[in-house]
Each structure stands twice: as structure tokens, then as C-alpha cells.
């Protein structure tokens, strides 16, 4: 199974950064990445399918932000894990994100090694 990851962020360089950081995995066909610039685009992607195995979303975004997206995903796609990425690090924010049903909370600057571990956990749930 190739894990499909939806990355939601309004920063224009994000798709390029993810493609470079996951270049080996992409080349090896170990992961599939899709990108959305905000919550509304993300929902459109989710509705269009095929289903995603994980959503990595920024919190601060125009239109529909990360927390609203999380809420929506919890309702409509409850099995898809959501990882929130935010510059607002801190225990309170982390706890709040987890209490809202996020799989994890990743602070910016993003540690891609940790992110890759999360992706690997999704593709190998038992491992």
C-alpha cells in the first residue's frame, strides 16, 4: 500500500519542499503526495478521492483554517488521521489539537524525520 498524504498549507514553496524532502520515497513509489492551499481546497481533494491515508495541515490559513478542517474531517472522514502543523508551538496548543482529535501536533520549523516516522506509521500501522 502506497500511503497517500494530503499536505494543506498556503505557503507557495511547501509543495516543492515536500517533494524534495520526500524525493527518495517519491522516486521509490513509497509515498504519494497531494497539495491544497487551504481547508476548502483540501475538502475538495478529499471529496474528489481517492481516499487519503493522512492529512498534514497548517493551522493558519485563509478561507478554512486547519482547526476547522480538522473538525470537518473528524465528521466526514473520521478514519483519516490529521496531523496539525503550526508555528504556535507550546504545550497548550498541542494538548488542544490532540483533544480536538488530531493524530499529532508538529511545530514549525518542521522536523521531517519525525514527519517521515508519522507517515511510516500510517503505512505500517502495526509497525
Amino acid at each position, binding site marked *: 500500500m502506497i500511503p497517500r498524504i494530503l499536505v494543506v498549507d498556503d*505557503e507557495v514553496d511547501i509543495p516543492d519542499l515536500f517533494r524534495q524532502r520526500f524525493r527518495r520515497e517519491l522516486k521509490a513509489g513509497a509515498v504519494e503526495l497531494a497539495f491544497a492551499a487551504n481547508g476548502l481546497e483540501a475538502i475538495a481533494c478529499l471529496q474528489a478521492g481517492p481516499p487519503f491515508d493522512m492529512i498534514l495541515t497548517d493551522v493558519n490559513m485563509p478561507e478554512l483554517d486547519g482547526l476547522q478542517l480538522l473538525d470537518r474531517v473528524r465528521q466526514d472522514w473520521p478514519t483519516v488521521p490529521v496531523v496539525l502543523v503550526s*508555528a504556535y508551538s507550546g504545550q497548550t496548543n498541542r494538548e488542544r489539537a490532540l483533544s480536538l482529535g488530531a493524530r499529532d501536533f508538529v511545530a514549525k520549523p518542521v522536523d521531517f524525520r519525525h514527519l517521515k516516522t508519522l507517515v511510516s506509521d500510517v503505512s505500517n500501522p502495526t509497525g
Partner: protein
Amino acid sequence: MTLPQTIVLGSSDDAEARRSLDEEMRVQQALAVVRVLPAMIVGNSGATLIVALNFLSAAPSQFLAGWLVTVHLLLVPLALRWWRFHGQPAPRRISTRHIRKIDAWSLAMGLVLSVGVIYLFPLNGATGEVLMYLMVVSLACGAMASIWMVPTACLVYAAPPAISLAASIVIYGGIGGAIASLSLGLCTIILLIFLRINFRGFRDGVMAIVERDNKSREIDRRRAAEERLAASLAELQKAQSQLIVQEKMASLGQLTAGIAHEIKNPLNFINNYAEVTVELLEELAETVGRIAADPDPDDKAELDDVMASISGNLTRISDHGRRADSIVRGMLLHSRGDVGERQMADVNDVVEEAINLAYHGARAQDQGFNVTIERDLDPRAGEVSMLPQEITRVLLNLLNNAFYAVRRRDASASSDYNPTVRVSTLRLPTRLRIRVRDNGTGIPADVLSRLFQPFFTTKPAGEGTGLGLSLAWDIVVHQHRGELLVDSTPDEFTEFNVLLPLDGAAAPGTGLAIR
């Protein structure tokens, strides 16, 4: 007492100068009452004694001397006064030196007259010599009193001899009594004339002294009050500047979280692109090694791909580094105490920056905070001469207030409420309008009238200094010669309009802030 050192008459200010001089002279005269009082007492007592002794000795020549002395005491001051004020041609220049010169002449003349009277009617024997000396002293004192032109002094000085003469009528009768009666009558007439002439001047002089003393006391009081006021003002200014710094720090604190968010985004790219570039370089080394050993077209393509990625990554690192630098610079500008430099600034850019900072600041405080920000920025807005940091500060304040209002309404409103803040710019013929409108709680009329007052706040203690809008007012109205208008309907909307003149020259230059 200081007289005007030199007053030039004949100029257009003649009347004023003369009035001032007259008043000053009246003051001088009245003051002289106090100055010559001891001389009057001594001189008067001496003269009284002489006249009394002359009566007792009953010598006609000495009695006549007593009479002449008495009359002289009244006549000399009158004559001197007339001579001083009426006998002199009006000098073009009147100075204290000039007046003192006249005083000296008066004194000399009085003394000569007095001594002359004594030598015309000499007293006999040792007692007579003592009396003569006493008379010289008393006459000198009398002359001093007269020279100062003090009517009361002369009156007091002359009264006892007159009483002595009256007593002589009772005691001696006859020729002596007749002469004494004549003396008394003459004295009385002269006194009345003298009083008539001098009373008004004396009264005015005393009034002037009282007035001046009052003025002097008033000046002292005012000076003390002014000193206290200046001290209080300095304290207040110090407190005000501290409060302004506090307000700036408070708004900076609100912004810090937003700025931190802003800066972490470029840092995210810098760190990750740097790391991925290191990985790419490792791959590059491997590929170069393979090409050196066994050239392969696929390896060549990969090499080109990696090289392109490295080059792109380094460019992105540089771009995001600059972005972070710009954010830090912006933060430093906001934390600085001064108002920055007046410059042509793109209004829409300033508005966008303020929206970004305010939004992220609000989000940092409350992650659950949600607001729709509508932008309607006039593409013709262009550049306006302004102090960009200060205008950003104004907009941050207006936006923070707008966010606060929609958040409050959101907490109590029904679920279909959509918190919205609309920011628009519009270039008018002579001015540029920046409008911040929110659909929050609105502002009641009684609050509206006090909105720009310093320290007025409706926020709970600790949440607002009450200086935000008053500083905004100062920045827009005083620093930019613009207008800051507010309109609101409770539970409907609040709208602030910042109007900046397009003509930058009409606004004051840098540094005219109240800070």
C-alpha cells in the same frame, strides 16, 4: 524700588510712558512716607520743643523765629514741590538720575533756608546754642520730609507746632496771642491747600503701593504655583511617556506571537532547504563518483537534476532568509521609541502588513478565534507621504479593536453570526481613505463621545491601557494632519475612517509626535 532707567518721551508710546512714569513717581512718594517717618518724628519733636521754649521765654524776636520756623516748615515743602513739578521745563528725557538730581537741589535749598532763618533770629546763651543745633537737625529732617514730597509727612510735622501756637493764645494773649492766632490761621489755610493739592496724589500713591504689593505677592504666588505646575507637568510628562511606552510594549506583546508565527514559516524553509541541500550534495558526490568510474546518460541527467535543485534551494534559502530579516526589522521598527521617517509609502502594502500582523497576533492569543477579513483595496491608492510605522500602529489598533468587538459578539450571538472585518482603501481627489469596519458589538453613543480620550477604556482591567485610540488620534490628526472618524450602531457595526491628505507638504515633518 526701581524706576525706569530711561524713558524717551515724544515717541508714539509717549502717553503710555508718561502714565507709567506718573504711577511710578506716586509709588515713590508714598513709599517715602515710610522712609522719612523717623526723620519726621525727630524733626517734629525738635521743632515743637523750640517753639514751646520760645513761648516760655516770651522774647518777641525768638517768638517770631518760632513762627517763621513753623511757617517755613509748611511753605518750604510746598515751594519745593511747586518748583520741582511746575517750575521745570518738561524734560525730554526723564530718568532716575534726573529725579535724584532735583532731590539733591531741594535738600540743599531747604537746608540753606532753615539755617538762614536761625541766623536771622539767633537764640541766646548755652541753651540757645543747644536749641539752635536742635533746630538745624529738625529742619534738616523737615527738609528731607519735604524733598520726598510727602503731604502726610508735612502735616504730621507741622501739626504740633500749630498746637503749640494755639496754646500760646491761651497762655499769653495780647500781641503774642494775635501773632499766634494769625500763625494758626495761616498754617490751617496752607495745610488745607496743601492737603487739597496732595491728597489725591497721596491716595493714588498708597493705592499704587497696595496694588503693587498685591501684584508682587500675586506674582510670588503665581511663580510658586507655576513652579509647582512645572514640576507636576514634568511628572505627568514622564508618566505619560512611560504609559505610551507601556502601550507600545503592550501592542508589541500582542504582535510578538504573530511575528513569531510569521518568522517560523521562513525558518521552516531555511532549515529544511539547507538540510535537503546537504543530502543533495551527498547524492551529488555519489553520482559524480559513478560518472567518473563509468559515464552513464542517466547519471548525467540525475546530476543535472540535483545541481538544479541545489541551485534552487540555495536561492529559496536566501529568499526566506531575507523574508525573516524583513520581519525582524519590522518588529524592531515597532518596538522603537521614535516615529520613524516620513516617506512615500504604498498604502495598500501598509494595510496588508497591518492586517497580517493583527490577524496573527489575534490568532496567537486565541487559536479558536475566527474572523472573515474582507479586503477591498483600491488599486489606485498608490503612495502617500506618511510615517509608515505610525500608520501601521493606528491600523493595528483599529484592527485589534475590531477583532475584540467581533469576538465579543461571537460569544453571545447566534450560530449564524459570521464575524467579519472589512478593510478598504480609496483614493479620493485630495485625500486617501482607509476604512476598517467590523460587524461586532458596536459602540454605545455615550462611549462614542469619549472614545479618543486618553485612558478611556471599556475593556476589563489589564486588557487595555485606554491609550490606543488616543495615540491613533494623535498620529492621524496631529502627525499627519488627517482625520480619524468613527461611526457605530450598537450590535450592528463600527466603522473607523482614517483620512490622510494626499498633499504630503501639508503635513508636519518628522518628529512632531507627542512622544
